[in-house]
């Protein structure tokens, strides 16, 4: 279910319900760890060694990522001084041998763009100089 409509001066934005978007991590023993929401994701609490990563959005979209060496999902959010808050995207950084592939999963859509909720924009970054403990490695 889509939760949020923002009627701007020049566009209308539809956004996901941040309370009902979460990751799903699968492990070799068949167990599954589910995230909480976009406010308190729970990502740092899950163990290493996952075999598959997916994201379930409140709109019903389920995005399953190909297997990489490690993942780091980053929530992109804006807070406005008018009291507003918008979740723009989940930027899932995926570690390869020589670079990082970024899967940018859109969490909002508006009438000025053809991009929709759940659309994915792929990018690539150089390897980070340091790996934070938030990276989760696959088994």
């Amino acid at each position, binding site marked *: 279910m889509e939760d949020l409509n923002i009627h*701007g*001066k020049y566009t209308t934005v539809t956004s996901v319900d941040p309370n009902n978007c979460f990751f799903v991590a699968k492990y070799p023993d068949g167990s599954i760890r589910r995230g909480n929401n976009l406010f308190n994701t729970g990502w740092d609490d899950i163990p290493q060694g996952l075999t598959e990563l997916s994201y379930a959005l409140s709109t019903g979209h389920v995005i399953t990522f190909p297997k990489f060496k490690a993942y780091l999902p980053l929530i992109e959010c804006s*807070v406005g001084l*008018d009291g*507003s808050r918008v979740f723009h995207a989940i930027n899932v950084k995926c570690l390869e041998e020589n670079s990082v592939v970024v899967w940018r999963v859109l969490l909002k859509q508006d009438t000025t763009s053809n991009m929709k909720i759940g659309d994915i924009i792929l990018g690539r970054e150089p390897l980070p100089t340091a790996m934070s403990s938030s990276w989760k490695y696959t088994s």
Partner: protein
Amino acid sequence: MAEPTLRFVYNISDTDVPFNKYAEPDTNYRILTPGSDLIVFTGGGIDDVDKGMGSNTLASGTRSSTIRPSTTSFVIPYTYVESGATMYYAKQTGHNTNRYAFGVAISGTMNSDLYLEAWDDSSFSTYNLPVLVGTANSSNESYVNAIRTTSASPPWGPGWNGSSAGAAYLRGTSDRIGLNNTSTITNAEVYFNIYIRLQTDCSTFHNTPVLGFRYLYT
């Protein structure tokens, strides 16, 4: 990690000093509450004196309309924050070398810089308001000048603008400032200064753009 917590503060004192989160309430600062408080750029009109512009506090709703400049560009001289029944003079804010005008106290960790942006409204999608579009005399740049002052005071001689290092003519994501100039931030305070410069070819307008703060977290 959970989403980091942001607290917005502004300096109402006569001194250019940082926010002291360990001695709250810091009497030099007030907390800006998103959604209820409003930053107001005003003054430069014929009734500045009558309206009491420059006073530490004014009654909520007080405005002195800026006269559209006729010969040269003009910086809107007063920045207040309207909070409840009172407007508080943000004295350190403006086209000056003051470092501690507005601040954001961050609790938790961001996996990015904290970016200050300006948009038409809370859709965070468009920037078509006249104050953000600018005019030919502003080289079609936004009239909103903002600069990162977390690590240093704004440069002078003859004064900083959106082209200065660490500054931008705020508009969307392409013209924004990173307030810490780092790739991560943990439990820190960041600062910026901001002003609006009107041009002689501007229209007469009353705009209410939204200042937004964008960041990443796990």
